[in-house]
């Protein structure tokens, strides 16, 4: 069912806006899109591609840590490859709570914009 046909209360839209910031959404969505390939480097590139600008790695990893503390993503370690000097990779996956948070964020945004014609024009 398309998300905009669901009633707003299905997503607790009043709570969601406080749950996920825009950058958190970008990181969470990048992890979700990468599915089984979601390790740090891929997520960094995914966020840069989505935002169409260079993004500081520190910001992405700090966000990943925060999302993990909120239980919106989970991580596991896997063996490294020679190109990374054998250092282990940390793979991320979006949890059920993370998927719910993303859906709720999208619903909240769409509800907020309902009735406004885009692009906005000055009404001053």
């Amino acid at each position, binding site marked *: 069912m398309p998300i905009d046909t669901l009633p707003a209360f299905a997503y607790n839209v009043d709570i969601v806006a406080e749950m996920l910031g825009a950058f958190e959404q970008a990181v969470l969505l990048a992890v979700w899109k990468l599915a089984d390939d979601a390790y740090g480097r891929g997520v960094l590139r995914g966020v840069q591609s989505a935002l169409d600008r260079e993004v500081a790695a520190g*910001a992405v990893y700090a966000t990943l840590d925060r999302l993990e503390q909120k239980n919106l993503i989970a991580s596991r*370690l896997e063996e490294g490859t020679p190109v990374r000097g054998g250092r282990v*990779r940390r793979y991320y996956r979006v949890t059920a709570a993370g998927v719910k948070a993303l859906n709720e964020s999208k619903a909240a945004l769409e509800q907020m914009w309902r009735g406004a014609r885009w692009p906005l024009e000055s009404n001053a």
Partner: protein
Amino acid sequence: MTRQAPPRWLQRALVFLLAPRDRETVAGDLLEEYREEQAPRLGTLRANLWYLRQSVSFLSIRSAGGPPVKAALTWVSVATAGAGIWLAVMENILKHAGYGVRTAVAAAIVAEALGTLLFLVLDSRPVFRLIVLAGAAALGALGISAIARNVSGPHFEGFVLIVGCLLVAQAVMTFAVVLRAHYPKAV
């Protein structure tokens, strides 16, 4: 694929800035990106600058855990170190009379700025704390002197005023952060 790698000191600096949990994973991710994407596309020098920028981004994350003044002091110290390096380079290019002394002063400014950064990321020992405080006092005096001489002198130089203000700001913030760490309830 390339076997190129960022300078070893830079890799060590990155590891130093990372939380123990992230040391292998993040350093591996950035090395992989460096070798597979940045170095082949940008060349060694620009790839090293990319690696440096990414490493510095962890410095702000590391310092963000403290009070706002600690985060501000981190950036002021980086700016002060940059100003000191700039002064030393310019003195050695222009070689006006007395440039040797001024180069030594610039080197001392850089040393104090780097010492402050080390203090911010390490658990400091009392001796180190005293050295940083003494250096901050000297920087503050130097900054006030530079501002006063610049304002009252015949030639006003904006760069000197900015550097003077930076030195004073660094001195004040260093005292605030160090004393706060030592006497948390008093400051």
